[in-house]
């Protein structure tokens, strides 16, 4: 026996030689029993070789026939029936922020997914995050088959995202196999298949008991092997192999010129296709992700911007899937008493979005700072994101109008996070905001000013950014104050069209120019869900901050500034005059009353005198009559004594009476 040949193989070789007649009898038996498959060889082959390569090879003179189309369809039906018995397609969550949201749960479980993209679009990162998160969050071990990078390079590259692949490998959760294909080292002679790849993959899968597989990028094979027909057949087999083992797989591929992938891999991987894109617009690059296809599941069809941050990929849905945030009816002071008054007396709604727009120098930042200060005084936390001024500059400037932000900063309730808009793209801004909010957990966020974003994106992009910002903050019930610079000459409402529909309360600040001066006025353009003033109110930036001035509203119209002051002076003079007149009249009346009172007193005194006199006279008269009667009685007495027989006293009495009269 030859020694160069391995013992086991030798055995097999001889065994095969001996058993071939027996095998051919098997063929006929199998062919008789399995009429459905049509080809006995196929069945038998399955029995003999554990995992056979597919090929149109004849063997023992028995022609192997591939299953015909109806056969295949039948098989497919059987397969889909098996996998789709539960109503919803089972999904394997990726753990990638935002991605599971737009796919309603992740990648199709147990199926291969194609991730196509240009070089540098983040395919490798996407797939490695899929594996790492699968291991760390969902306890699904994975295999990374790298065709382009060595395991060391890959480990180094993803270490920047905080993934420690070495540790995962050590814990036997991850297997990395670097597959190296170099055409110049390979000579092709005759028929071959890629069983070696399958063996390696199977080994790796078995090693860690993998549920997830990444092939990055399998297209490298096309540069290594010249025979495309073999390669395609093998790829088809590979994807079926993955499916049969219920492995959730991510296959990456380079983007082709006019096709999805350079080598048409989408032909084989038909379950889900994700395209990653990397576009530069106005010198700012944005990464985007789109789910082109997702068989058996609904998915967001938009292009979603995504970021590669220091914690991996974050996909940012343009808008949150639903508008379901719970709103608060709680109110929160704007920090300016006059403005609160204009907003129904109680300020903004908590968790609403407020836009303060105005021309240069109208005090947008001041309003925002007032709000921040008031919030912090009430114990709230405020995240202030200035985009034009440094924090110390804002603090100094606010100090000049008597607004001291230093205590809030010291208490840690106010936090400035300056970010130059041009430093990075819109998505990065969004991510930064997300991260800061998660970190600081503020009650309110101030963006000052949002118009700075215009430098880094088109209006539509900014709108989408702000929509996402406001959506996110609203869902967190965080009050958002945005300031926006309006340029002179533009229609003041028009220039903010990008965000106007997003905001709940819109306060317009503008300067009114008349009689050689500019005066600042504010008005509430809209404020959802509350009654608010329809007046233009003048305010000044005084040493005590923003101070609203009682508006002049009169027959001369609404006036501001010195016009208002002079008008007020005139009116004051008029009022003073009027009140003097009234005083005068009142005094005259008083005098008249006093005069009358005196007269009344005089008359009364006179009357009383007369009354007294009369009463005295009556009394005297009465006394006199009494005396007379007494006298008469005395005389009568006397007479009675003298004229004893005379009986006429009555006559004498009546005569007396007449005399008295």
């Amino acid at each position, binding site marked *: 026996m030859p*020694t160069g040949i391995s013992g086991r193989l030798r055995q*097999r070789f001889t065994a095969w030689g001996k058993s071939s007649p027996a095998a051919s009898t098997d063929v006929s038996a199998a062919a008789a029993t399995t009429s459905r498959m049509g080809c006995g060889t196929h069945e038998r082959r399955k029995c003999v070789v554990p995992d056979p390569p597919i090929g149109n090879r004849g063997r023992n003179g028995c022609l192997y026939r591939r299953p015909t189309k109806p056969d295949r369809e039948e098989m497919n039906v059987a397969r889909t029936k098996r996998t789709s018995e539960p109503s919803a397609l089972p999904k394997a969550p990726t753990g990638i922020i935002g991605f599971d949201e737009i796919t309603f749960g992740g990648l199709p479980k147990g199926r291969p997914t194609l991730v196509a993209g240009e070089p540098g679009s983040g395919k490798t990162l996407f797939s490695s995050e899929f594996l790492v998160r699968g291991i760390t969050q969902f306890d699904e071990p994975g295999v990374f088959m790298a065709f382009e990078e060595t395991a060391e390079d890959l480990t180094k590259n993803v270490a920047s995202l905080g993934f420690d692949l070495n540790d995962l490998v050590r814990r036997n959760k991850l297997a990395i196999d670097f597959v190296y294909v170099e055409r110049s080292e390979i000579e092709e*002679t005759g*028929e071959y298949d890629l069983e*070696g790849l399958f063996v*390696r993959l199977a080994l790796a899968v078995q090693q860690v008991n993998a549920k997830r597989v990444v092939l990055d990028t399998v297209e490298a094979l096309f540069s*290594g092997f010249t025979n495309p027909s073999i390669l395609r057949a093998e790829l088809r087999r590979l994807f079926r192999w993955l499916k049969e083992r219920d492995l959730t797989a991510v296959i990456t591929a380079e983007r082709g010129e006019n096709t999805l992938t350079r080598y048409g891999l989408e032909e084989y991987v038909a379950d889900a296709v994700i395209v990653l894109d990397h576009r530069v617009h106005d010198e700012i690059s944005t990464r985007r992700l789109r789910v082109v296809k997702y068989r058996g599941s609904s998915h967001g069809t938009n292009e979603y911007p995504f970021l590669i941050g220091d914690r991996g990929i974050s996909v940012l849905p343009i808008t949150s899937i639903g508008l379901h945030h719970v709103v608060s009816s709680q109110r929160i002071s704007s920090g300016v008493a006059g403005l609160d008054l204009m907003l129904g007396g109680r300020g903004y709604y908590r968790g609403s979005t407020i836009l303060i727009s105005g021309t240069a120098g109208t005090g947008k930042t001041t309003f925002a700072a007032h709000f921040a200060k008031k919030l912090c005084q009430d114990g709230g936390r405020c995240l202030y994101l200035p985009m034009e001024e440094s924090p110390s500059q804002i603090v100094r400037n606010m100090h000049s109008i008597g607004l001291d932000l230093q205590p809030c900063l010291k208490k840690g309730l106010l936090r400035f996070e300056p970010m130059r808009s041009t430093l990075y793209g819109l998505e990065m801004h969004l991510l930064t905001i997300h991260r800061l909010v998660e970190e600081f957990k503020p009650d309110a966020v101030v963006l000052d000013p949002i118009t700075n974003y215009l430098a880094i994106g088109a209006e539509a992009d900014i709108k989408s950014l702000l929509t996402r910002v406001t959506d996110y903050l609203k869902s967190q019930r965080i009050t958002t104050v945005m300031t926006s610079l309006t340029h002179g000459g533009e229609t003041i409402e028009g220039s903010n069209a990008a965000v106007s529909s997003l905001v709940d309360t819109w306060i317009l600040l503008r300067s009114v120019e008349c009689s050689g001066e500019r005066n600042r006025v504010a008005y509430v353009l809209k404020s959802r869900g509350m009654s608010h003033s329809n007046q233009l109110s003048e305010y000044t930036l005084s040493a005590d901050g923003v101070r609203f001035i009682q508006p002049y509203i009169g027959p001369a119209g609404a006036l501001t500034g010195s016009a208002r002051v002079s008008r007020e002076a005139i009116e004051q003079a008029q009022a003073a005059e009027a009140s003097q007149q009234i005083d005068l009249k009142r005094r005259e009346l008083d005098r008249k009353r006093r005069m009358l009172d005196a007269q009344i007193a005089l008359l009364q005194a006179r009357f009383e005198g007369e009354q007294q006199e009369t009463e005295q006279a009556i009394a005297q008269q009465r006394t006199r009559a009494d005396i007379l009667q007494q006298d008469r009685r005395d005389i009568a007495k006397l007479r009675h004594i003298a004229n004893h027989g005379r009986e006429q006293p009555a006559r004498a009495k009546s005569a007396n009476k007449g005399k008295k009269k």
Partner: protein
Amino acid sequence: MTADKDNKAKTAAADQSDTDRDFWELRLYVAGQTPKSLTAFANLKRICEEHLQGKYTIEVIDLLENPRLAQGDQILAIPTLVRKLPEPVRKIIGDLSNEERVLIGLDLRPR
């Protein structure tokens, strides 16, 4: 056929120490007894006998038995013939039915 190879292998091993440059250490990677593997082995043997008589060894590695060995030599295609010696390492894939190309691959013929 097997006895023949046995002899050759022995002689090859004996020769190894003398002329390293003139010695062919070949590895044939297969995965089970597939027709392609059998063809490849038969072809290889014939070619070796014809051109390298007495100065070669053939080691057949069945990846179904030893899957771990696939990684070391970066084996993807089956069958793959690896020329370990003389250096540089060269790979020839396929059932080795094209003798001309095999000879070129083994550097027995100028390219």
